[in-house]
């Protein structure tokens, strides 16, 4: 069934048990993003230190795709230096725009390849990207603040 290509077990697992969904009080930037077409929201705190994602935490409401995708993202970027995190972000964005033609590089994307199916459901791509865009924004704001 087509649905199964969207809702892989990994996604349902992250949805039930999201990682780092517990706002950490210390951060270099906090951002709040909304998906205006459905009302889903996310608050994301990030701690950038020495060019690395030293801390990341979030809270919010959303569908299984947005929650799982954000959870997976936090696992992927935590501890990485910003350049590699942005490479992953780039890979992931590409995958989302692939209209089902790509399956994603598991070396780079790890659990996030489970979201490959989303690219066949245009209305859901925004869900999958919500957390990632918040992450990008938060990093840029941190950089601004840290004067980098």
């Amino acid at each position, binding site marked *: *069934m*087509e*649905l199964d290509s*969207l*809702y892989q077990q990994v996604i*349902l697992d992250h949805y039930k048990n999201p990682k780092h969904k517990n706002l950490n009080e210390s951060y270099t930037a906090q951002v709040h993003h909304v998906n205006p*077409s*459905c*009302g*889903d*929201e996310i608050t994301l705190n990030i701690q950038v230190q020495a060019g690395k994602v030293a801390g990341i935490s979030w809270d919010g*409401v*959303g*569908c*299984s*795709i947005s929650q799982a995708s954000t959870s997976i993202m936090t696992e992927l970027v935590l501890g990485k230096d910003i350049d590699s995190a942005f490479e992953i972000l780039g890979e992931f964005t590409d995958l989302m725009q692939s209209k089902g033609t790509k399956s994603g590089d598991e070396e780079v994307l790890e659990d996030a390849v489970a979201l490959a199916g989303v690219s066949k*459901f245009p209305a*859901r791509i925004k*869900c999958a990207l919500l957390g990632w865009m918040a992450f990008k924004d938060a990093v840029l704001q941190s950089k601004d603040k840290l004067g980098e």
Partner: protein
Amino acid sequence: MSKKFDPVEVRKDFPIFSKVMRGNSGLVYLDSGATSQKPREVLDAEREFYEKNNAAVHRGSHLLAEEASAAYEGARQKVASFIGANVDDVIFTKSATESLNAIAYSLGNSKSGSRYEIKSGDRIVLSEMEHHANLIPWQQLAKRTGAELAWFDVDSNGRLDLSNASELINSRTKIVALTHQSNVLGTINPVSEIAAIAHKVGALFVLDGCQSVPHFPVNVQSLGIDFLAFSGHKAVGPTGVGVLWAKAEHLAGMEPFLFGGSMIESVTMTNATWAPAPRKFEAGVPNMAQAVGLGAAVDYLQKLGMANVAAHDEELTGYALEKFSALSGVRIIGPKDLKDRGAVISFVVDGIHPHDVGQVLDQYGVAVRTGHHCAWPLMKKFGITGTTRASFYLYNDFQDIDILIDSIDRAQKYFKV
């Protein structure tokens, strides 16, 4: 099911029902609250206009221009009869959204001292259940003029709290703008009653008829309102056409909204005077084919009979409310009884986000809408970010509702809740 018309027969008039949906299922279209499907008659009317009569109305001196004008004005006459209006008081817009903005901007354009002027200290009364289209134009008008916004609360059953109506609509009130039927809750509001309170203090009453005009008989005279807005695309009509109706005295007294060709009486570089309504409010070459299509849509609805459409809606809603009440883990947002309630059911499924509910339904060909339904303040009131919404219309039958209910059950199983 009503004997008056058979939805299975009706469906044959709508080409889209031969569509094959995801999962190879047929189309169970339960999203008419967002936009309705179109019968062949409407598509044919638009096409015939283009193939036989297309010309700029009211402008050319040739046969096509004559025919185009007759078709366009004929459509206006049809729409006027449909809502019990005088033909010259019906304005074609592009949508209800434009109609509502047109009223707000026209009032905002008033000359100082005009009875239509909105000033600092004036009050505009809305409700918490308004669609963004009947909220933000007023909110922004209030910001521009210094007027104050006030609103009816919605209670936990999804009904307007009318207990403070006469304090809310006070002597400073200039406008009361209200939806006839909530696009989220299905609640049908007591329009005449509230319009009467508005008139007592000299306020104008604006009705958002988007969810009512397509679904039950609406007569502007007997409702006692000042303005009505609705969209063609929710009433088996084309996209790109809406209606603004207003009392003749208002159309005469108000300033126009869009400026350009065909709406003028005379023009110099620095000044212009206006043609009488409806022209005054229809600048430019209008959406002629769409107006003609809306004329055909109104014919189609009247052929079925609006009382029959309403009865059919009610049967479906009654059946669905009963079925929903038997579901566990599913909560209806809105009235649970049939009284003053339209064919819209919004619900939340415990443990499953509306997006995910909608996605599973889509797998079975069931088209619903999910999200805040352009009624964000209402969502906040109910402490939710969104709902799943099923809305019914003349081509739906009991079986569609059975499939909906089954699919909700499947979603619950899929997400193990």
